[in-house]
């Protein structure tokens, strides 16, 4: 492939995105905070620990079962902050709007952002709008940035997984990715699958309050569970072993994956988290998650191991073993 231009795969959230970030972007802005490669940056200002994160949303379609681009934009940044262990406080909202976009749709998006912010208990306090000519953008793109406070004593990062940690997943995977796909491609089948978009900050706060032991938090968005686990394994230089039988997937989502040849491990989620938790805290953290509306089906899906640092292995349902690699490109349905 020609390296002189950006390909769609660079934005898939998989290996090429990782390479784009680590080879082209991080070296330019070179600093220790950026180099952490976490969902957000954590730093001190006047001895106050802050988390700061940004995310852009270009989802197509902009309205989909379970949510819309506005709700996604709020929850996305809220969750990125929460994954730093922070309590999200204030968000910004930048909008790039294509000329000709419906005012009613814009109002609908703004209203759902208002509701999402209310649910997450954050405020949208600054923003910007740009309108571009037709076809210079697709309907509407939204960027949100956010700041949050990291409570004293909280030390959470992708590089902090330790051998022996239990890996907790907060619920069934692949719902968001499948929802977007079948609605974008206007696939002709009836389906009740809907996006899992949700703010995870309240759940994270409860997890941290229960008494420590949470080392890593990550929301497996683009690239799915597989890519997020690989990132943790690389950042912490540990191996991760997971059990297929413990990974929840809703039946309907799993059937659609089956039909189209997708692996749910690589499909996006917008309301799930992975936590690496010290073994003696794992059960109590799991209990806290399960008590929360967005974590009822949480389970321990594996553990952090010393073997094969940087790699993720999965014990399959039939007792075999497979390597789980990062996503290599946007998943396509297979004909074979």
């Amino acid at each position, binding site marked *: *492939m*020609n390296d002189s*231009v*950006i*390909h*769609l*795969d660079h934005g898939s959230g998989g290996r090429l995105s990782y390479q784009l970030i680590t080879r082209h972007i991080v070296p330019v802005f070179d600093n220790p905070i950026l180099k952490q490669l976490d969902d957000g940056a954590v730093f001190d200002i006047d001895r106050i620990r802050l988390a700061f994160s940004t995310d852009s949303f270009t989802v197509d379609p902009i309205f989909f079962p379970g949510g819309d681009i506005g709700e996604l934009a709020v929850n996305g940044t809220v969750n990125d902050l929460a994954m730093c262990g922070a309590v999200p406080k204030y968000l910004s909202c930048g909008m790039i709007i294509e000329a000709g976009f419906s005012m009613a749709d814009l109002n609908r998006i703004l209203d759902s952002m208002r509701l999402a912010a209310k649910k997450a208990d954050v405020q949208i306090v600054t923003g910007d709008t740009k309108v571009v000519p037709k076809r210079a953008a697709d309907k509407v793109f939204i960027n949100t940035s956010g700041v949050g406070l990291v409570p004293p004593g909280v030390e959470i990062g992708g590089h902090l997984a330790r051998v022996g940690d239990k890996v907790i997943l907060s619920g069934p995977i692949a719902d968001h990715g499948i929802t977007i796909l079948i609605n974008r*491609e206007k*696939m*002709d089948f009836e389906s009740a699958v809907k996006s899992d978009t949700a703010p995870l900050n309240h759940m994270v706060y409860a997890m941290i309050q229960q008494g420590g032991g949470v080392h890593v938090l990550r929301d497996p968005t683009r690239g799915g569970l597989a890519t997020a686990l690989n990132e943790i394994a690389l950042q912490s230089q540990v191996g991760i072993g997971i059990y297929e*039988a413990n990974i929840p997937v809703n*039946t309907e989502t*799993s*059937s659609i994956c*089956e039909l*189209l*040849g997708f*692996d749910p491990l690589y499909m996006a989620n917008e309301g799930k988290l992975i936590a690496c938790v010290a073994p003696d805290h794992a059960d109590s953290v799991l209990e806290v998650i399960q008590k929360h509306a967005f974590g009822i089906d949480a389970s321990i899906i594996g553990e952090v191991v010393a073997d094969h640092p940087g*790699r993720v292995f*999965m*014990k*399959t*349902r*039939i*007792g*075999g*073993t*497979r*390597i789980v*690699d990062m996503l*290599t*490109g946007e998943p*396509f*349905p*297979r*004909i*074979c």
Partner: protein
Amino acid sequence: MRFIDEYRASDLSAYLAEQIARISVTPVRIMEVCGSHTVSIFRNGIRALLPDTITLLSGPGCPVCVTAQGEIDAMIGLSEIDDVIIVTFGDMLRVPGTSCSLMQVRSEGRDVRVVYSCEDALAIADANPDRRVVFLGIGFETTAPLIASTILSAKQAGLKNFSVFSAHKRVPEVLAALMAYKDLAIDGLILPGHVSMVIGKRAYWPLYAEYPRPYVIAGFEPVDILNAILLIVGQIEAKAPRLKNAYPRAVSIAGNKRAQEMMASVFQPSDANWRGLGRLAGSGLKIRRHLEAFDAEKIFQMHVSEQCELEGCDCGKVLLGLKTPPECPLYKKVCTPSYPVGPCMVSSEGTCGAYYRYAEK
């Protein structure tokens, strides 16, 4: 899920794996022909359940992966015609031609659309009367009948802006070509389930008559695959090779007659170029002359180069287990997962792709 879960049972899988380990004495190489088998073996971690005596080789059964470079160049050429919309199944997008893939021309703004069913291709043609829609006919005997029926529907509907570029390939013919290799080091074949559903067990009778080896038609669940391996190993140990249908819940002796008739009425056998394997007699399907109004090759007077892959590619030998990936002169130097040359690298679960990503690290 009914009819699926029972074929994914862990206790039955464990039992079959134990039986394989118990009876397997002779080192054997078994090729799973079909790309879906390769994926299932990988996703279920089946290799880890097998004794050291058994080596699984991934065959030429991923239809997009064996699509020749020249054919992809021709598709890309079509996409550069202003009024043309290329319609394809998704996994074709990534397969590289000489200088780029359909994915790249799409990100550069060419109109290349992914569909999930053949009807979608017709709908696009219907909705764009001022554009010419070319549907890429890729696949084996599984997809060929569907595309045949799409061509017939287009004819019936009087669509004037719809055509198919047929790069279909035929499974029994490529298997016969593989088995004819001298120095062949394959002891048995797991035959594809979906293809066999269409062509039936009897389509392999000539293959078995000429090259009697253990051939087992198998489904795609782990229990199906382990069972097929057990049957093949049993036949090898007993020195009694058989052609066996271990997927009777889907495959019959005669296959799907209607699909076969549909295929025969639209396509005729032709020679075809296979990435990694070269030109194989009678191994492709071209659109019959009476339907040439739907044949993109005729409409656009396409010149399809004979180029199968870059010179030096040893995929043929890797497929046959005669070489390991590092023994190919292109491996890792020219041919990588980002710039794949042969089918073994094009398919992420192919022998070279898997070797590159997993074996060496």
